[in-house]
């Protein structure tokens, strides 16, 4: 599973494909205070990325992948 849901934190790993987007959105909607951990994520499909920036969960760990980090920085204020 590229994304596994750990209590209130969604942990992303490797390459997260478009199919993950709906499940992620459902999960984010159900959480009052959702956080995401993107450290080990190497690529987010645009659909998943879009869900993340549209729902603005708190990113507890930014991605190591520089491009993804740039993209997040370019589209949402990172809440620490």
């Amino acid at each position, binding site marked *: 599973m590229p994304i596994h849901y750990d209590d209130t934190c969604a942990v992303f790993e490797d390459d997260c494909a478009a199919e993950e987007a709906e499940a992620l959105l459902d999960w984010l909607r159900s959480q009052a205070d959702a956080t995401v951990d993107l450290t080990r994520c190497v690529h987010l499909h*645009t659909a998943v990325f879009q869900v993340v920036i549209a729902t603005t969960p708190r990113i507890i760990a930014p991605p190591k992948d520089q491009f993804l980090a740039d993209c997040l920085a370019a589209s949402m204020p990172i809440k620490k």
Partner: protein
Amino acid sequence: MNPLLSQFVIEARDQLEQASTGLLDLERRPGDAGVLQTVFRAIHTLKGSSGLVGVAPLTVLVHAAEDLLGAVRDGRVAVQTGMVDVLLDGLDRVGIWVDALETTGDLPSDAGDTASIQASRLRAWLGTPIPAKAAGTLSASWIARLDKAVRLETVRRAQAGGGMPSAVVYEPDPECFFRGDDPLALVRRIPERLALVIEPTSRWPQPESIDPLMCALRFRVLSAAPATAVEAVFRTVGDQARITPLALADLEADLDLGADLETNPALPASTRADVQPEAGSEDRAACRRILAEQVLVLELAVQGEQWLGRIDSVERTVCNCLGAIGDTDHLGKLASTAVAARATGSVQPLRAFVAELAGVSVVAEIAPPPEPAMRPARVEEIPADTRGAEVRGGAGRVLRVDSRRVDTLIETMGELIVAKNALPFLARRAEEEHDRRELSRAIKAQYEVIHRLVQELQSAVLAIRMLPVSQVFQRFPRLVRDLAHRLDKRVELAIEGEETEADKTVIESLADPLLHLIRNSIDHGIEPPEDRIAAGKPAHGTIRLAASRGPDAVIIEVGDDGCGIDSAAIRAKVVAQGILDAVRIQSLSEDEVLMLVFHPGFSSREEVSELSGRGVGLDAVLAVVETAGGTVALSSRLGQGTTVRLTLPLSLAIVRVMTVEVGGQVFGVPMDVVAETVRVPSGAFHSLNHGPGGERAFVLRDSVVPAIDLANALGLPPAPPAEQAAVLVVRLNGERVGVVVEAFRERLEVLVKPMEGALAGVAGYAGTALLGDGRVLPILDLKELI
């Protein structure tokens, strides 16, 4: 002209045509996304192919049009009449340039200036005019909002690399996820990314109503790589991304460059670290791949002179790649190698050089040098068909043939008909001179077979020249629109039967008459909107342009629902202008009176308007149509409109004639004027006025038909008196006239050639044809003669 350029000229015309037609539709139905897409695609393709032939001003202008259309598509700008005017103007200009490219191989010298003026007029509609010196670039206000340090870095890199940086605005299709697109993956591949802005296309909805399967993002990227390198990334989604080369002016908005570069060459660590190492290596890898492709391109077989174009495009691509990775050291060698390749016709050294740059090894014995003789054998391997189909969007398999080749075919065809027509002569000789009836019959039988084959061949050959009337019709929507605007009238053009086909010559001869008729309808026929409303008609006038196929003829009707023609006014006018006297005009029927508008010098309007009514026009229409062997009819009802009907032969080349004998000579009369042939007893002629050479007439089925002696008209010795006279009844200008000849001969199909040289001015002849026995048959033009 090199083949690449001539192909561009042909395709550019198609695309301009599509775009102009589409723009007119768009003006009428601004919300039609399909039409907008068609226009956009035509312009986009034109821009792309213009880049290949290196006509920069043209590209700049088309690019500006594309940007504007892109803005319309994105809903940022609404379609308005003024905008359509500017776009059409731009396309007209491009059309002029395309003509210039065809004739001189180059753009006019003022093209650069014209392009930037017209481009800025187009961009003015984007709402953000740009400074003149940045012509050809996007006025990217978002760039001005970028961090100063980033812009400074871009300028610095651009100056170091010698290329222009690019701005990308990429708005993926909302449904792109369903096609498996991942826009973010594409953005990741943009080389030398310096700045990135990601924003929703509209405000994010509440989490409950987010649709995770629809893409709602817009990406803006600033890259130090040239536009060509960036375009490669977006090749598959070209219509969703706009990539614009940036002039330094766009970046320098508020930078004090000199000072900043001197004192502060280093940039904030974050910017550099973010971008450089990764982008640089990605770039190099991409360039190596592109260069490797160029090596393959040079190995492909090409036909004719296309290898020149190929060397051009490879050189340009390699040059861009070198620019993108900041490698200026090899540019000199590239240029010299390319020049050598063009001069010697051997691409081997160029290929080796590009391979070296790409870091791929070249197998020594592959691909023989492209010597002309070697190439055709391998042409079949190139999927030329698929490329063509891609460009023309499945327009069917169309063969473009030089019209001269078809003309040669038709001439040979004409000679074949002449040769065929010799057989009956031969049959007669066999019978009469050699008394070989059997042989004569065999020749006749053989003649029938050849006749049938020749006819099939003839219709097949003539079909090649057949064009749909849409070829002429397609220019009229634009004309009607412009004229109506100028006269403050509201006019719709309804076109019917545009797929009707006729011979190329007929189609071409139609253009001017139709132009006159449509002008007349708009100027004199359609009333101003307020008058129309007062008369209980819709404010919009309608002009109907309809083509249909009649027997052996194509019928074109130009009708309007305007004010119609007042025959009383015409009667008065004709008398006042001294065209006919008051007594004569009383004898004319209503239809005959209406036809007087075609009389030379007739103009029903008091004042001379800007468009028509200069006293020329309708008579010119009649002249052109009659020269083409056609007829004109007019019907009009006062207050309800006027319709002019042109009937033209399907083909001008082959004419059916009736041959007649007069004074020992044979003449041809085109069958289309012959109504019937009758034999009239000499006693049945009545003299209308006495004396030698006086007018005569005879009674045919209870009506009086004037008779003219052809021998007399041609100045030939009069025929010996006979009991019966052979009379050819012809229809001229709607009246029947009897033409007295000595004898009727056979009917023939002949290829009529116009009179040339010293004979061109001789009145009374339509041309000549060659008979089967080698004699020349003069074809009479009875209208002129009588």
